[in-house]
């Protein structure tokens, strides 16, 4: 809230539009509501316009009762699909979800909404029709050309947590702070400037996130230099302390390369705010040289060969093969230590 207010002040924005899911639940704790309202009250230079999303839909009566009760004067709550004059000559058409999964186009009414000569701005929450899924899967269905069809100067969308333009006049602003590895974009808000009716909207992304969620997939082939590739996907040292780093490793690698990579990930893990690697998707390549690293013959070698065979036997259940592969990986580590 404070970051958004500061950006609004910095860019002389008069209104901040929240396109739904301001609250993640239909019944957040009263203190959460109160503190949110207090933060908005503190940003008295801006008007906050709150519209329900699918998480805090309009039928969340207890939530909105509390919001309305605690809301300061610079907060507007739009619970009904009715035109709202933002400023003289500019009307906001909200499409608040009435429930978690409305299953219909809530912006349908935009086209017939009478607003005179006023500038029309739409605010909706949900997925567009060619959008494969919303955050939760089909919370609502919005035509991709809704802005054009309804004569909107700009259509602001909520629901998708990553920032994404649907067209020049339609944007998902994304969540101001990431909460998962799903989106690769930097968390940000959008500064939307419309100089006049008919003029194209000028949209500027303003970073807002403080924590970086980074998921770096490392897809290896048996000829890759795994350590070098690992070095390449790592963020700069200075950024690691505020980075949540998730690295799924896939593909295939020689056992020795895998052991080396495992050790490398262990070495860099303390650099990060949070660090996780997942080797479950990494297949192993076993050749004689690899197994020789364990032993040339005898029981250790025989056990290694047994596990290698088991790991590559497609007739076995995946979990059995995975167990054998991980076991072989451990055997490599132990044998190299011994």
């Amino acid at each position, binding site marked *: 809230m404070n970051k958004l207010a500061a950006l609004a002040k910095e860019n002389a924005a008069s209104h901040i539009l929240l396109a739904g899911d301001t609250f993640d639940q239909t*019944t957040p704790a009263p203190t959460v509501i109160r503190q949110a309202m207090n933060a908005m009250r503190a940003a008295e230079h801006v008007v906050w316009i709150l519209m329900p999303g699918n998480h805090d839909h309009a039928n969340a009566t207890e939530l909105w009762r509390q919001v309305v009760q605690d809301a300061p004067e610079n907060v507007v709550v739009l619970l009904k699909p009715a035109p709202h004059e933002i400023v003289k000559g500019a009307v906001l058409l909200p499409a608040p979800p009435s429930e978690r999964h409305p299953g219909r186009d809530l912006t349908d009414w935009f086209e017939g909404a009478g607003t005179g000569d006023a500038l029309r701005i739409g605010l909706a929450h949900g997925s567009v029709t060619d959008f494969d899924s919303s955050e939760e899967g089909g919370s609502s269905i919005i035509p991709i050309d809704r802005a054009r069809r309804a004569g909107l100067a700009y259509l602001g969308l909520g629901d998708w947590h990553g920032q994404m333009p649907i067209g020049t006049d339609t944007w998902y602003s994304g969540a101001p702070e990431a909460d998962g590895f799903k989106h690769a974009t930097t968390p940000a808000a959008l500064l939307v400037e419309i100089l006049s009716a008919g003029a194209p909207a000028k949209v500027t992304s303003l970073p807002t996130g403080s924590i970086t969620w980074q998921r770096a997939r490392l897809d290896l082939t048996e000829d890759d230099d795994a350590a070098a590739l690992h070095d390449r996907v790592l963020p700069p040292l200075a950024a690691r302390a505020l980075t949540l780093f998730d690295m799924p490793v896939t593909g295939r690698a020689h056992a020795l390369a895998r052991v080396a990579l495992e050790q490398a990930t262990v070495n860099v893990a303390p650099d990060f705010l949070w660090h996780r690697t997942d080797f479950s998707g990494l297949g192993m390549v076993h050749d004689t040289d690899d197994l020789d690293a364990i032993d040339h013959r005898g*029981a250790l070698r025989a056990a290694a060969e047994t596990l290698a065979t088991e790991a590559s036997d497609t007739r076995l259940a995946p979990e059995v093969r995975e167990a054998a592969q991980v076991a072989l990986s451990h055997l490599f580590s132990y044998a190299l230590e011994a």
Partner: protein
Amino acid sequence: MKLQALHLTNVRKFTHKRASITGIGPGITVVSEANEFGKSTFFDAIHALFFEKYGSSAKPVKSLQPYAGGAVEVAAEIETPQGAFLVEKRFLLRKTARVVRLSDQATIAQDDEAERWISTLLGEAGDGPAGLLWVRQGLLGLEPEGSKEKALLTETRRDLLSSVAGEIDVMTGGRRMDRVMRRLAEDLGEIATKTGRKSGAWKVAADEVATLEVELARLTAQVETLEGALAERKAAETTLARLEDPEARGRRDAALHAAQAAMETARAHAGLVTAARQDRDIAALQTKNAKVELDGFLTAIDKLNTAETAARATAETRRLADAEVTALKATSDVAKESGIAALNAVIQARARLESARRQTDARKAKAEAVRLTAQIVKAQEAQTQRDAARARMKASPATTEWLSRVDAAASDASMRESAHQAQSTILSVVYSGATRIALNGAPVVGEQPVALEGEAHLDLPGIGQMTIRAQAQAADGMDQLAKAKSLLNDLLAVCGAETLLSARSAAAERAEFARQADLAQAVLDTLAPDGIDALIAAKAEATLAAAEAHDEPLAVIADLENGLDQAVADEDRTAQTLRRMAADHALARETAIKAGAVADAAATELDRARSAAGADERRETRRIELLRIDAQTADTLSNAETTLNRLIASAPDLATTKAELQRAADAVEAASRQRAQVAERLAALSAQIRTLAGNGIEERRDEINGQMETALATEARFSRKAGALIRLQAALEAERNAAQETYFGPVQEELKPLLAILHRDAALSFDSENLLPSGLTRGQTEEMIDNLSGGTKEQIAILTRLAFARLFARQGRHMPIVLDDALVYSDDDRIIKMFTALTRVAHDQQIIVFSCRQLAFQDLGGARPMVEITDT
């Protein structure tokens, strides 16, 4: 390699001497010598030759040096596939090693090269097979027996293992496998127990999952409650809006008003029906009353006639009964007079009889008083006599006891006197004539013995004098006689008697007094058994009773008694007559009372009938009037019933109307009640929603969901890791066990026939850790090696070495077996069997046996080498 000869120079007891064993055969060679011969010295020396470097001064080498010091030299002639060689080493001083080919006496290797040559000969690993095949004296078992033995045996075991260590390590992974297993166990131990159960971080993760599951379930339930409350509140609000819809409310009110109006109409009609029913009931009642009154009047007329007849009859009966009572009462009065007279006669007769009897008794009392007076006098006389006799008796001391004592004293004195006389000289004279003789001058009375004392002089008239000297008596007898006489005299003096006769007279007199007293007492007891005072009292009583006695003539009592009996009989007869007449009278009275009651009842009934029938002059008029009323009320009743039936037929269904009204009223009330309930429920739901929402349970649930996701992933990661480690552990153990089985297989194969010589169907199991026999199975029972007897343990130890030797031989590595006093605990039978086993192996295996048991090992056969000791 086979040993052919051994040479020791300056070794231990062979100080400055050379000890040689030559003629060692290719099979069994027995060196059977007494203790302290140096067998162990040979054993240790050849061990040092093959396993200690020539430059070594280690303990095994130092131990070979004699006290005198000097260089220690050990040499062995051996045969190999490459030919015969002499291997020799000199330790401690001028150290050297040398291998000499015997065929040409050429030194083929010296010092370090010689060591390498020996190593190649023995094999790559450590002590080689010899460490496994050679057995020192006293170290026959496979387990330690004491601290020193334990250390030595541990060394032996190490030798044993190291003899094949190279191959085992290769097959089982050796120490590298151990390290891998240890690391694996460490990693697995951090997250799982030995049995594969969760522990450490894995358990923490699993526990967190469980905890979160509980918390999540709780929060989910609360969220569901909250969602349910929200949904319910929404539904309630809809319901409330519907209930408060004015149009619906108007419909309910209109329906209620219509139902109320219909109900009023129905109730009014019901009132008409009720009134008609009351009219009908009144008419019916009047009709009934009229009929009753008419019937009553006619009945009263009939009853009046009957009552008049009855009243007359009962009055006559009553009159007759009263007359009977009067007659009986007169008769009864007469009888009562007779009874009174009879009773008076009885009383007078009884009075006369009683008077006569009292007079008779008074006269008898008077006579009794006279008799008692005389008896009192006699009794008083007897009492006086008794008291006098008792006084005299008490005055006399001559009691029976006294007399007994006197008799006893007299008897004692007489006895002592007789004894005295018996001891005295007795002079007894019976005169036939008148002449008398004199004793000491006094004449001697005839027929009366005289005791003579001392010297007595008899004057015998006509004859002369005679002097008799009596024998003197004993003084003691004399004294006792005197005491007896004195006692008798004292007793006699008590009663003043002088002789026994007078004493007895005094006693008889006292007895007579006693008899008199007793006789007087008996008389007294007879006359006054209860005492004289009782007689006096009886006399006074008789005197009193005799006061009424007079002297007038007295009637005869029997006559008086007869007169009384007659009077009593008369009185009984009179009384019986009186009772019979009283009964008749009472019966007559009862009959009269009953007749009176019946007559009274009949009169009452007659009065009642007259009253009911009314006055005679009005009876007809009343009958006609009653008949008219009866007809009139019947008509009224018929009309009332017609009216009632008409109203009932045209009445609306009151129950249906009431139901309609009830339904309409219920609908209104239900709507009102439901409105209140819904409003109340709304309030409760709002409170519940605010309470639950106030706790932020959705946020908490989502937070826990996130934690749960992480915990599940962590738990799954540990689970996968544990599964992988367990899988790795299983794979490694399986391969190691397979390798060990591969290793032990040939050994077992070689061991089996040898073991069968000693124990049929026996088998040895091996410890996979230390590669030593660990148990012996005989039949179905497996015994641990530790628990076997010393003999069995040493036999197994030798057989195991024989099996290893066979295994090495099969691989082309022939090494001798050297046993130093290896059979110490075995009995003779087992020793023979062990000889058989040794002989079986010796077919293609050199075995050198050192033993001090010369006699026992005679049966072993084999070569007996030359042992030669010479000075150097």
